[in-house]
């Protein structure tokens, strides 16, 4: 009888300790976001910001930076955002469609050299993308694709296929062949079985792949900086660069952080939209469980 209270105390201590660790980790992850949001709401010079962030003064909070970002930028924020969404959106869509087929082929078809091909793709994905910027430039320049939408969408979606293709393949490997075969016996063609059975089962991984395929191009600077010289194709990543270094006033942290906050909104929206697919667990109970 004397053991029980002590055990309860130990359990409580463990719980408090684990919560403390989690709270610390959370603070570590969230602080930069907090820093950016608070900074974006002030117009203070850099030297005063640290003190302001730790103890925010409600009277000095202002949405002036947001006003500048949204209404007084040239090219306009909306134009930059539109370009970014076009690039990232079409790259994600193209990349995802190709990745789904790639994953299907690599997972469910037996052809000579399949394993080698998978390793080859994995090897490719190990190269840092920046390495490719220069060769890409020469290639696309000779093709006349510099300063065009297509010129960026092609390399962006190619990058998505490489990584997401493997992602989809691994996920499809976990779907038993029985399920596809059941569909074939049920009267479906292989193509129908792919679209009506395998694709719905792959929603979790496709959601994740879409998210990653969107995120890369949306935040890309290296390729965009080199490939885009006209202002009407400029993306958000280029825009944030130009307000930080350009004629809008150097080192205006309020502006830069406000830009970053608005720029991150589509990513948050995208994540929330696909979040439920990423939860997964759809294959549970398909076969004996």
């Amino acid at each position, binding site marked *: 009888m004397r053991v029980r209270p002590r055990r309860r105390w130990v359990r409580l201590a463990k719980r408090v300790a684990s919560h403390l660790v989690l709270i610390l980790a959370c603070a570590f992850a969230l602080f930069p976001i907090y820093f950016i949001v608070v900074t974006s709401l002030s117009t203070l010079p850099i030297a005063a910001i640290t003190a302001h962030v730790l103890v925010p003064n409600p009277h000095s909070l202002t949405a002036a930076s947001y006003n500048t970002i949204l209404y007084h930028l040239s090219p306009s924020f909306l134009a930059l955002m539109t370009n970014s969404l076009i690039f990232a959106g079409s790259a994600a869509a193209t990349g995802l469609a190709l990745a789904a087929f790639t994953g299907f082929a690599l997972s469910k078809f037996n052809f000579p050299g399949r394993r080698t091909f998978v390793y080859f793709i994995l090897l490719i994905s190990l190269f840092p993308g920046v390495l490719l910027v220069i060769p890409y430039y020469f290639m696309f320049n000779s093709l006349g694709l510099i300063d065009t939408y297509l010129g960026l969408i092609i390399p962006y979606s190619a990058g998505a296929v490489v990584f997401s293709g493997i992602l989809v393949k691994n996920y499809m490997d976990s779907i*038993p062949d*029985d*399920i596809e*075969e*059941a*569909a*074939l*016996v*049920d*009267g*479906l*063609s292989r193509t*129908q079985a792919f679209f*009506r*059975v395998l694709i*719905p*089962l792959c929603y979790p991984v496709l959601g994740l792949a879409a998210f990653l395929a969107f995120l890369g191009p949306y935040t890309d600077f290296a390729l965009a900086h080199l490939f885009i010289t006209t202002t009407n194709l400029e993306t958000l990543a280029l825009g944030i660069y130009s307000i930080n270094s350009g004629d809008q006033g150097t080192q205006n942290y309020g502006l830069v952080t406000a830009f970053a906050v608005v720029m991150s909104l589509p990513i948050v929206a995208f994540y929330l939209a696909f979040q439920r697919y990423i939860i997964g667990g*759809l*294959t*549970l*109970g*398909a*076969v*004996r*469980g």
Partner: protein
Amino acid sequence: MTGVTLQNVTKRFKTETAVDDVSLAIVDGEFVVILGASGSGKSTILRIIAGLEVQTSGHVYIGDMLVDDYEPRDRNLAMVFQSYALYPHLNAYDNIAFGLRVRRVPRADHPRKLRHLTKREVDAKVRSAAQMLGIGEMLRKRPAELSGGQRQRVALARAMVRDPEAFLLDEPLSNLDAKIRSSARIELKRLHARLRQTFIFVTHDQSEAMTLGDRLAILNHGRLLQCDTPERVLSHPANQYVASFVGSPEMVFLEGNVQPAGAGYTFVKDPVRIPIRGAARPGPVTLGVRPWDVRVEKEGSPTALPSRVTGVERLGSSDHLFLELAGPAPASGAAAPAPPALSVRAVTRAYDFNVGDRAFVTFDPDRALFFDAEGARLESMSLATRLP
């Protein structure tokens, strides 16, 4: 509703021959069980019939139609997988309706044009199948929310609604726990009686095969050893493999020799000596007796083999005895070493014998079988009715 015929079907994978020259004619409405140990090629045969695997040589007919070049979807067969292979993203209703929704049937006004089934037609079929299998209440549930037995019924219903030429069942009961399995077996048999359609059922479980099949096709290493009714397979096995694979408890085998004795021949396996009837040749043979054809008595008749009970398995309605044959006592003073103990299994009435009891064994001469050294059955040979 059609029969299925395999004609010299062979399937080779890279190094091994999974199915070796199998010919099998399955009659319309028949319940055929393909029985074999794992790796015997039984599932491969089913997959070849379904079109999921293409045979290396030979032909497959569904009815009179040669279907070698047909895709699975054009064969109009239904398959129940061992894993059930339900579509995890669809509920039970949609799982059952899935095949119906993609199928197209001739239009009433325009027999050469095809149309999809209407919602109402699909619904009627799904509901009647679900009702027949007693799963009407759980049609809204996803496979993950169903028990093993319920999933198996959904898989069966999915097969039924399609009104297929034949049902292919790949060990559909092996993932159920023992209690449900026996009732599922009875239900399946009843379903077959009701649908009167061709069922091709693959299993490694011989008792499942015995209870379900109109005919059993027994495979080993891709070869079809025998295809016959359960009774015939049991009483007239084609060879020793079939004899040992089918029947539970397993057949008793005594490996011995045929030796000339007087005018006739005797089967010799120390300490057993039993005269033989019929055409015999000296040489090694194996005597096989079903445990239930081993007679065990408390009082020794002159022809009986004395033995000792070394183990008893009490099953309630009957007992399984493990007996050690002692043979005739060696001549007094002879230095002959005691022959190695010979174990025999027998089925007897419950509670007749206890461990340690003396017992006298005879074999039913009409039921005992002989096999040659290669395992082939020696049909002309049998035990003589009386021991000397």
